[in-house]
């Protein structure tokens, strides 16, 4: 026979369990909108039953609350994070490409093609009115506009490179911050769980930080058997239980690409080795900042292409312009130089220090190989252009260099870059110096050389991509294809991610309806347990009153 008050004890466990469950419902509801929160459930089981010698079988002894359990699917977490990494990567790519597209600003009525249209149009006008100073002024202004436009492009690109670099350092410090948070949370979780309890809410927080970290870099994470938590980045340990490594941005001492801005940052682990990213936002940022070639072409590629465009067209325009005669019947000068130098200053500076600051390299014999007086001038020019292209292509030292005709020799020198190009001071200060005439005695009425200049835009042998127009067209559509791909990938990954998140939320999200129905359920069971109490009281009352 059980004791008289045994019933109380059973009812009490019921009351307590219901109360705890109600509290958990309350906790769930309170955290319904908390980011990263996984709903919790109380698990319970029946107490071990008692046996009584006086009676057969066993008798239940009430309910025991085991644990507060999180409802969460680790596999979905994993999928979510690997998808987040991709979204982070493609998102950063797409963002950068969007910026690049706005910088290039094509197709539009104010992009570089329009400026070129106007420049060559001015050349046509010069051909028709070579003696007119008004027309000459127009040519000069159009030439300046061309230099300013490419200068603007180059500066914007480089500015974007600085921005990307800044973002790289910011993301690095974000990674460091997250790593620090994870170690702090590790400490809390480990301490809490030493006695076998579950630190659910701290785990939620840690999961959230890992979610965020996964957007920045590709991570691998795991618990060991002792409950210690580790995060690796690309095989290197970022967080190891209570300790974490740090990413340190180090200023570069040498440029990775010839036209990079100075003092970009390389990332290094505090513990020594260099950092490499396999995917994630960081990888995209680094790629866009540094890649001059490869599948994911970055800013340096576009800077390089703009520089190639500028150098080739400026060199060719200079060549033709020099072959003409100005208004006074004198030999032509350069149309373009750098930094407002005069033609002679520019050429002598190139010869003395035009190749990485050292003297220009004479490659005349290789350049003129294959030319012959029996061929036409056009044919010879084409041979020379082909030779120049192959020399530049085949010699790795000459990457990003240009071969110019200086004082009778073909020399390897630095390019005229988009950033430095300007019209020559000869022309800036004297409109007469624009050589419109093809012959010395043609001045002032001969505009043949202006026509030669205008025809450069149709010279399909100028670039590997064809004529100057073709070059810009190819550049714009290449950028378009890359941007389109990045944006499409971003959109696709976002759909994937939201699908996975949907599934994840389906498991771990708080449903108010569910909580409400649980609340009603637990309330009822609480009421019932209380009711039992009062019934027991009545029963005892009856017993006590027996003796009266």
């Amino acid at each position: 026979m059980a004791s008289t008050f045994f019933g109380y004890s059973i009812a009490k466990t019921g009351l307590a369990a219901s109360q705890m469950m109600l509290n958990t419902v309350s906790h769930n509801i309170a955290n319904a909108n908390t980011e990263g929160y996984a709903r919790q459930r109380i698990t319970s089981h029946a107490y071990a039953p008692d046996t009584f010698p006086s009676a057969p079988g066993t008798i239940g002894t009430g309910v025991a609350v085991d644990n507060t359990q999180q409802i969460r699917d680790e596999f979905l977490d994993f999928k979510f994070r690997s998808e987040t990494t991709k979204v982070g990567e493609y998102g950063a790519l797409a963002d950068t490409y969007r910026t690049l597209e706005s910088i290039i600003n094509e197709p539009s009525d104010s992009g570089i093609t329009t400026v070129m249209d106007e420049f060559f149009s001015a050349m046509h006008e010069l051909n028709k009115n070579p003696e007119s100073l008004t027309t000459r002024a127009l040519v000069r202004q159009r030439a300046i506009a061309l230099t300013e436009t490419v200068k603007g492009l180059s500066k914007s690109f480089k500015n974007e490179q600085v921005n990307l670099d800044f973002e790289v350092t910011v993301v690095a410090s974000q990674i460091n911050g997250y790593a620090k948070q994870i170690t702090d949370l590790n400490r809390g979780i480990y301490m809490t769980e030493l006695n076998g309890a579950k630190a659910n809410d701290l785990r939620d927080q840690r999961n959230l930080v890992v979610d965020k970290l996964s957007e920045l870099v590709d991570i691998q994470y795991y618990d060991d058997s002792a409950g210690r938590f580790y995060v690796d980045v690309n095989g290197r340990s970022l967080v190891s239980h209570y300790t974490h490594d740090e990413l340190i941005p180090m200023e570069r001492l040498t440029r990775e690409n010839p036209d990079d801005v100075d003092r970009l940052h390389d990332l290094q682990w505090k513990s020594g080795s260099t950092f490499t990213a396999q995917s994630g936002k960081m990888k995209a940022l680094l790629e866009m900042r540094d890649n001059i070639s490869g599948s994911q072409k970055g800013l340096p590629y576009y800077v390089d292409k703009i520089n190639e465009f500028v150098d080739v067209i400026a060199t060719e325009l200079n060549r033709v312009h020099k072959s003409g005669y100005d208004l006074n019947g004198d030999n032509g000068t350069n149309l373009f130089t750098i930094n407002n130098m005069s033609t002679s200053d520019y050429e002598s500076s190139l010869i003395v220090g035009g190749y990485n600051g050292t003297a220009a390299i004479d490659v005349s014999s290789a350049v003129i190989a294959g030319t012959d007086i029996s061929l036409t001038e056009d044919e010879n020019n084409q041979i020379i252009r082909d030779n120049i292209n192959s020399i530049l292509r085949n010699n790795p030292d000459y990457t990003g260099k240009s071969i110019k005709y200086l004082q009778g020799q073909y020399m390897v020198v630095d390019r005229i870059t988009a950033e430095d190009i300007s019209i020559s001071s000869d022309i800036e200060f004297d409109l007469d110096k624009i050589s419109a005439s093809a012959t010395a005695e043609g001045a002032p009425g001969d505009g043949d050389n202006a026509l030669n200049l205008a025809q450069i835009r149709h010279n399909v042998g100028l670039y590997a991509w064809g004529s100057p127009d073709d070059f810009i067209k190819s550049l714009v559509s290449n950028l378009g294809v890359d941007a389109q791909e990045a944006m499409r990938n971003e959109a696709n990954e976002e759909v994937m991610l939201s699908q996975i998140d949907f599934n994840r939320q389906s498991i771990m999200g708080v449903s108010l309806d569910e909580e409400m129905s649980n609340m009603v359920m637990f309330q009822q069971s609480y009421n019932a347990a209380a009711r039992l109490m009062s019934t027991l009281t009545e029963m005892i009352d009856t017993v006590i009153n027996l003796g009266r």
Partner: protein
Amino acid sequence: MRITNNMMTTNLLTNVNKNLERMSKKQNELASGKKIHYASDDPVLAAKVLARRTDLAELDQYDRNTRDALGWIEITEKAIEDNGELMQRIRELTVQAANGTNTAEDTQKIQAEVMSLREQLISNANSTYAGRYIFSGFETDKPLLKPDGSYNIDVDQYSIDNKPIVKYEVGVGESINVMTSGLDIYGTVEEINIMNDTFPSGTAKGTVAVQEKLVGVFDFDVNYTLDNLDVTIAGSNYVVDESTLAGTSGRPLTKDQVLSAYSDATNGNGLLSDVANVYFNAKDELVIESKLSGQMSMSQFSSIYTPVSEQRTDATISMLKGNFDLTQDYSLDTLDVDFDGTIYNVDESLLVATVFTDLTEAEVIAAYENADDGFGGVLSDVADVYYDDNGVFTIESKTAGNINISQASGIFTSFTDIGLNATADRMIGDFDLEVDYSLDTLDVSVSGVSYDVPEAALIGSTLTPLLQADVVTAYENASDGSGGILSDVANIFFDATGKLVIENKSLALESMSQSSGIFTTTLTEAVVKEEAVINNGALPFVDPLLPEDIDILMDNDISIVINGVARKVKPSFDAVITDVASYVAEINLRLDDAFGSDVVDLSVSPPANKLTFTAKNTINSIEPEITIDFPRTHTSQLIADIDELIDNLEIGKHSRIGELLDTLDGHIGNMLSLRADIGARSNRMDLIALRISSNSVSFTSLLSDAEDADMAEVVMELKNAENVYQASLSAGARIIQPSLIDFLR
């Protein structure tokens, strides 16, 4: 699936966002009227749009060019048409005047009218288009004719032969000449001048000649002092002083040293630099270029392979190694060493260990080193005897190669080992088997001993190349003059890559060299343009010059065209000219001013003052061409003829007036043919203008197809997107609002 309230909210937000995005895109299209804003919207279309825009911008320019060209041509046409009518009227008047029945008063009236027509002809000559004189050639800033009817512009043969062409581009690569030369209309009168008849004139072109040159790579790191670099030109041998050409890799020769050695090479009478240019070309090859034109034999003896000295590390040396027991008595033993077939007798009696004293290592080494072969040689001549780092007794051959060393007694194990210091010298280089070396010096020096290679046997040619075996034999038999041959001290062979290798047999790092280090010369024919000369005239004056002759010389331009560049020269106004020589000197100064120095030169030869203009070969790839001409008079043929008519009207010379009719007819015919030409051009311009405008229409429509948004479609799509948006909002409002809370009361 379990759905939570938050999921629905998120879903709703995502979808609403998507709808908004779509609407914003459509709205953007509507507002801008364009389908694409960024290349990424449609890269292919974007490229097309760019191309079309450029096409249109160009068409626009061509359109403007065409209209300008038409304007110019119309003015020209009008002036020539007008001239035609004026001439017609003059002709009528001339016919009238030629009629002998006119009174003096009639003739005077006719003369007055002709004079006013003449004024009109002059004024037509100075027609302008947009401020430019259209008939003045490139001198568009000057009127064609002065009021007196003489030319205001430069007139010479060059400007008559090379009519100014002002091209306007009216299509890609399609240009049209808009200019008509006034000289064609108004004609020129040739000047009669004493100089014209006798001064040199005409056109001359340089002829092609052949010159030979030797080209070769000159190695600056080589000592040429034992070498023979002599050059033969046209059978004459120029001896180069090689003693100055001692290059080493540490202190290479300079180009100047090489050039001066060659330039100073002498054949006893003259220097090489008299007959040849010696220089380094752009490829850094040494070029010896004959100044004499025509094909003649040039040669340089040396034409060899360049051997490179190097250390070889693959040499093997034979060693005998063994543990030599220092406590034994060897006096009864036979320790003699067989070194490559020669027995070296070791004096074993020195190697006696007793119970009290062991042998020392030094004693053993000394005994072996002094082992003699019975002919005065000792073992230490051919081998090193020592204890190695591990204390093992070693007899090591001094020469590389597989040499059999053995000892009868068993204390040694003989084996061949690759020594640590087994480096040896060798020379290696390409040996051209198709070259005649008979005049060459191939001598090899090994360790300071020179071996004379019998080069006379080495006569190779393309047809009968040398055999490798012959070369090897020649080298092997190279004698040092005292009985030794090269094969004693070196192995000579062709390696697998066909290079000749001379390998020192000795292991020590000894100096090896071949005197010929040389550069390979190849004979090439350079095509050089000769000078162009005009010498068909003389100064028609006596020397020293008379004042009136000086005046003529001072006044007269000489018109010279060289390689298409036309210039005029005459003595400067302050030049002091007294005789022919001073005139020639002054003209030469002016020629240098005009063309640059060394381009054209005037010389005079007495007694007939024969003048010679020489255009030099300034640019290698252009055959020089020179044209000399005298300035034309500034008189227009047309105006001159009318002036003659007026003069004859003045004096009433009917017969001459009648004759002038033919002349006038000639001018009228000329006007007509010019008009036909202009008319044809004008028609062509009309056609082009038409084509451009129709192209422009079609390109615009292509561009519009490519980039313009279809408004109806966009509006529909926008409306559609709007509906979807509203639907998603209202659906969301319905779903999100109710939850269990609303029903728990």
